[in-house]
């Protein structure tokens, strides 16, 4: 039974973790700059649909990813305009945007599926690039390391972090808060959209209404568990992915227990990680609208 189980288990964990990692990175980036990114779920959903439609209509997975990135940029700019430029309340805007995205993606998907049967069918998969890892998994690893290096080892990263801690002090030091936060939130939204594309193009090769099913919110929890550090947030995502993979394997092992006990594993594991991680300190200015004095 256990023979040869490790490889598939690791791959299953990484498959489940990959979309979460992109989204957790987007939350870390946005919140390090002082903007709460509740809209991660909605952007992920939009990116998931855009990616699939891109593959169907342009006939290439990488063009699907490109369309997903474009949708991420547009939604990111929209969110940034509302929450940073105006600025409206970040949490309320994020929640409203998530609801809007749920309705809009379902509507667009239905229109597309009625007009083109290929939208309803499974799209071609992306072959593994190295050691059975899909291009999205490799990208997730690269982005995680890059974001950690960028935030904690470069000057622009320091500026972004300083905005998240005290925007007015950062402004006094010469940083254009509104412009920089808009750019950062747009980049964060691109990462969220890539998380959606990782789900539809890189994993299940299809789209259904609300396909993300709260994965954006799990990514928010992962950013919290990871203390707003990209490396730790990615680890939290992998732990959750491993929990999911373990739940189904425990059920398959056939101990005769009710399956609901096994299906609880990822959530119990997440609760344990949150408990063990203790109280993390968020960047001090997160969620506070920046108004020039």
């Amino acid at each position, binding site marked *: 039974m256990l023979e040869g189980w490790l490889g*598939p288990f690791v791959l*299953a964990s990484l*498959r*489940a973790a990959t979309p979460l990692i992109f989204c957790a990175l987007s939350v870390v980036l946005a919140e390090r700059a002082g903007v709460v990114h509740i809209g991660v779920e909605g952007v992920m959903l939009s990116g998931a649909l855009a990616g699939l439609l891109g593959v169907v209509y342009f006939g290439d997975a990488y063009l699907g990813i490109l369309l997903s990135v474009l949708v991420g940029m547009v939604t990111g700019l929209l969110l940034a*305009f*509302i929450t940073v*430029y*105006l600025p*409206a309340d970040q949490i309320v805007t994020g929640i409203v945007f998530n609801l*809007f995205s749920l309705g*809009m993606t*379902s*509507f667009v998907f*239905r*229109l597309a*599926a009625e007009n083109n*049967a290929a939208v*309803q*069918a*499974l799209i071609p*998969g992306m072959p593994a690039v190295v050691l059975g890892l899909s291009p999205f998994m490799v990208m997730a690893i690269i982005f995680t390391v890059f974001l950690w290096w960028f935030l904690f080892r470069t000057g622009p990263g320091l500026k972004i972090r300083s905005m998240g801690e005290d925007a007015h002090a950062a402004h006094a030091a010469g940083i254009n808060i509104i412009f920089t936060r808009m750019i950062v939130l747009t980049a964060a939204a691109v990462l969220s959209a890539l998380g959606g594309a990782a*789900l539809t193009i890189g*994993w*299940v*090769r*299809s789209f*259904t*209404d*609300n*396909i993300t*099913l709260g994965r954006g919110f799990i990514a928010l929890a992962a950013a919290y568990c990871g203390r707003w550090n990209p490396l730790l947030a990615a680890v939290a995502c992998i732990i959750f992915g491993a929990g*999911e*993979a373990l739940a*189904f*394997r425990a*059920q*398959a*092992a*056939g*101990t*005769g*227990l*009710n*399956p*609901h006990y096994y*299906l609880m594993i990822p959530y119990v594991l997440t609760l344990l990680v949150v408990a063990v991680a203790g109280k993390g300190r968020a960047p001090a200015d997160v969620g506070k609208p920046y108004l020039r004095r």
Partner: protein
Amino acid sequence: MRKRFWLGLALLLITGMLFVAVLGCGGDEEPAGENGDNGQAQEEKVRVGVIYSVADPARAGGWDRAQFVGHQLLEEEYGWEISIAEAVDFPKLAETAAEFAENGYDIVVFTSSGHTDAWMEVAPQYPDTWFVMMSVADTLPECDNAVAWSPDMYVYGTMVGAVAAMASESGTIGAIGGVPIPALTLMYSGIVEGARAINPDTKVLISWVGDWDDVAKHSEVTRLQTEQGADVIFVVTGNATKGVYDGAEAGGALGIGYAADWYDDAPNAVLTSVIVDTPPMYKELAELYLAGNLKAEIHTLTAANFSLADFRGKLPDKEAEIKEVVTQIQNGEKEIPRVIHDVEKWSNQ
């Protein structure tokens, strides 16, 4: 001041987009109502309200797809007016059914056994409306205006099990379900017995995903079953069905579609589908209603109401043999014992 202007403009744009979207929806529906009929003819039409708990039933799970195909017949063959209430949450089922009845609909159709409570509650309150259950039912509401077309899920399962066992090279088949509900206990017990009637050594893996909609989880459970050796996999779930075909294709297995023909969704993975022939159910409903012979009873759908979809070139050497066994099950030549298993805790046996 400038920001208020921008805020106002943004709100205006969003409202405009929503308005256009709503108009877009309305534009699609209008021609369907016209169809060249005059107003008087429309008044005489039998009006049917169909209730789904899923969105977009024509493209949702197998049972909903099959129902959608069925009630299209009422529209196309009888010219009846069909109104669909979709994505109705369970707490709102009774209210929705009552609303149809109060608005003068002649027939209200429930499309899921999960609607049973609402069916029981509303039917006695509106004696002038027929309330039809097009899913598993073992008792009727206490009134004369309720009727059901109830499939024998065990028999359906035996056909799936037999097809899967004959198609399998490895001798291991997989069955995946969203949540263990009573209808699936019957069906999956049927799968076990149907498979063993073909090959007593067939190993049947049964997994529960824990929900009906998570495509990714369904894909992972399927991949796991292929890792355990399953090469033919069947699923009953909601929107997440395609996740199973994704997993099956990734693991080199074939899938058997539930209730409707799933070939177009996953041409590489779907071997065939065991179809529930819903148009005859709706035709019988229409004929009985028009003749005034509709009465409170449960019509049971047996093997004759289930059929195989085209194999489309897959397993050409086994196709004829599989179809022959299915015919034997349909006409009663092949008897399969009725044994109910504890499939909720089954895993792999």
